[in-house]
């Protein structure tokens, strides 16, 4: 019976994908590639066909690419119906229907949710609406910000020194603009890479002429009589005059549309099994609802079966491919999403890359190069195992580091530092901030419990 259903689904079923960005597109391509011939519908809240976001804070700001032209290349023809510019507004799990904001309904036999995240807005709406205050997540955000910057800005204030904020600061400095960065933690990138690497990032900011303010929060954005932003007030009572403010406080998962649907969806995303099948709120896996990309949260065998949310480009691609495969194959052919977390950033001319889950590590060894030279490989350890690595301008080592993580290699590492620098011989505390303290979130969120831990806490959804 089940095999008959899969055969029928592959031939003439209806698959709906909510979310028309990187994960949605790659999933659609994989469905067709693997022989799905039924009807395929992609629903997206933005009016544009799928485009690539990483260039928006790099090539686009630097004038190397147009914000309107980062559309993703297609790997094949899709033969899909596109419902763009209309967000999904609700889900009827029993009736197998997606409700759209314009009142229409779309029926499905199998559903993939890939609604991703959006930029966390400045929390005071009147201040967020001031002319000159921006977030940077979408193509429209990038168009507006680049226009403003090219029109001539005196000083840019970036709120939040995570990867996105640091990239914006870097591009603005390269454009010759005065930049102040305000960061609540002690250094940039500490949530993702810890304080030791954060200190290196702080030096990069300072050397490149960024006015870096750490351990401060922004208390208010001040506007002038015309409704344009004029100054930024900080918690140390200093005031920075600025005509452009870029709010870079991380992201929020797009799950509000699922509230009340019965799906296990909330501010931390949508939980799924390792095969991308979504859980309902009881923690029971659904048969016909799959998730992929930034909005998903799934257990990873290499990292103690913790539920990982990964806002990573490569995760969106790999998880979409796995979800699409599992959507149209018999249960025995399903495969787990076992992607090795990996990301990159380029800022101040330095290529920063990572594999594994750095925030899981509590110690760090520099196994190659030197932090003083901004060219090094750092390996993170946790409970005697290598769990992650980071490189600054040393990407070719990452593949080796990935193997070490996959094989559960011992930490501290046993091989001597290849070029025998003094800092490589001893592990040091990686110095991640206390997770209970508010700081910008890391790009990897560790949550959930190990299989040995039998607690279960229900947290009502608050965004």
């Amino acid at each position: 019976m089940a095999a008959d259903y899969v055969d029928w689904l592959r031939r003439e079923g209806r698959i709906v994908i909510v979310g028309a960005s990187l994960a949605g597109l790659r999933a659609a391509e994989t469905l067709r590639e693997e022989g799905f011939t039924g009807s395929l519908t992609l629903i997206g809240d933005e009016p544009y066909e799928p485009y690539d976001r990483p260039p928006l804070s790099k090539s686009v700001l630097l004038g190397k690419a147009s914000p309107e032209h980062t559309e993703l290349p297609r790997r094949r023809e899709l033969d899909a119906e596109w419902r763009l510019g209309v967000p999904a507004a609700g889900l009827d799990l029993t009736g197998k229907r997606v409700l759209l904001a314009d009142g229409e309904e779309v029926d499905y036999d199998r559903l993939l949710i890939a609604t991703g995240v959006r930029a966390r807005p400045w929390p005071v709406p009147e201040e967020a609406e001031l002319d000159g205050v921006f977030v940077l997540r979408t193509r429209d955000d990038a168009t507006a910000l680049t226009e403003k910057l090219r029109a001539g800005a005196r000083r840019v204030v970036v709120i939040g020194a995570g990867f996105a904020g640091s990239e914006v600061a870097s591009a603005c400095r390269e454009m010759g603009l005065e930049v102040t960065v305000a960061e609540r933690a002690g250094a940039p990138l500490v949530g993702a890479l810890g304080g030791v690497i954060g200190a290196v990032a702080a030096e990069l900011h300072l050397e490149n002429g960024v006015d870096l303010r750490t351990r401060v929060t922004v208390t208010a954005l001040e506007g002038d009589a015309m409704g344009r932003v004029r100054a930024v007030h900080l918690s140390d009572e200093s005031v920075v005059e600025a005509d452009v403010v870029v709010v870079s406080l991380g992201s929020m998962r797009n799950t509000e549309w699922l509230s009340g649907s019965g799906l296990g969806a909330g501010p931390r995303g949508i939980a799924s099994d390792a095969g991308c099948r979504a859980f309902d709120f009881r923690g029971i896996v659904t048969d016909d609802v799959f998730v992929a990309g930034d909005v998903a949260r799934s257990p990873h065998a290499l990292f103690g079966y913790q539920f990982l949310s990964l806002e990573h480009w490569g995760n969106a691609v790999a998880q979409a491919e796995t979800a699409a495969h599992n959507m149209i194959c018999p249960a025995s052919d399903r495969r787990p999403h076992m992607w090795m977390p990996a990301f990159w950033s380029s800022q101040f001319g330095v290529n920063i890359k990572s594999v594994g889950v750095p925030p899981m590590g509590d110690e760090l060894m520099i196994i190659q190069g030197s932090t003083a030279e901004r060219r090094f490989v750092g390996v993170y350890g946790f409970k005697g195992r290598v769990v992650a690595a980071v490189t600054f301008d040393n990407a070719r080592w990452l593949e080796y580091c990935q193997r070490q993580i996959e094989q559960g290699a011992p930490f501290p590492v046993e091989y001597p530092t290849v070029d025998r620098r003094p800092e490589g011989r001893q592990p040091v505390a990686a110095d991640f901030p206390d997770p209970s303290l508010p700081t910008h979130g890391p790009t990897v969120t560790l949550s959930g419990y190990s299989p040995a831990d039998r607690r279960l806490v229900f947290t009502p959804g608050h965004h």
Partner: protein
Amino acid sequence: MRIVVDLNKCQGYAQCAFLAPDVFTMHGEEALLYDPRAADEHRDAVARAAAACPVQAITVEGLHQGAPAEPEQVLTGAPWEPRDGR
């Protein structure tokens, strides 16, 4: 042409920046910047760059002149095999 580079794969060999310098440029020692919508005049150079990439990180749509609106040609490193995650 539409271009995307898988920068998880990219290891900064800079072959693309050498072969198609109007589309791909190195930023510092190792970071790559590129124009995701390269003009058609760079088609041959982009084709050479994509073919020369040692880690096959470059995907291009619209590499052949007079291509239909829907993509026909994709150059990439075996997209349907298990990817980096293995």
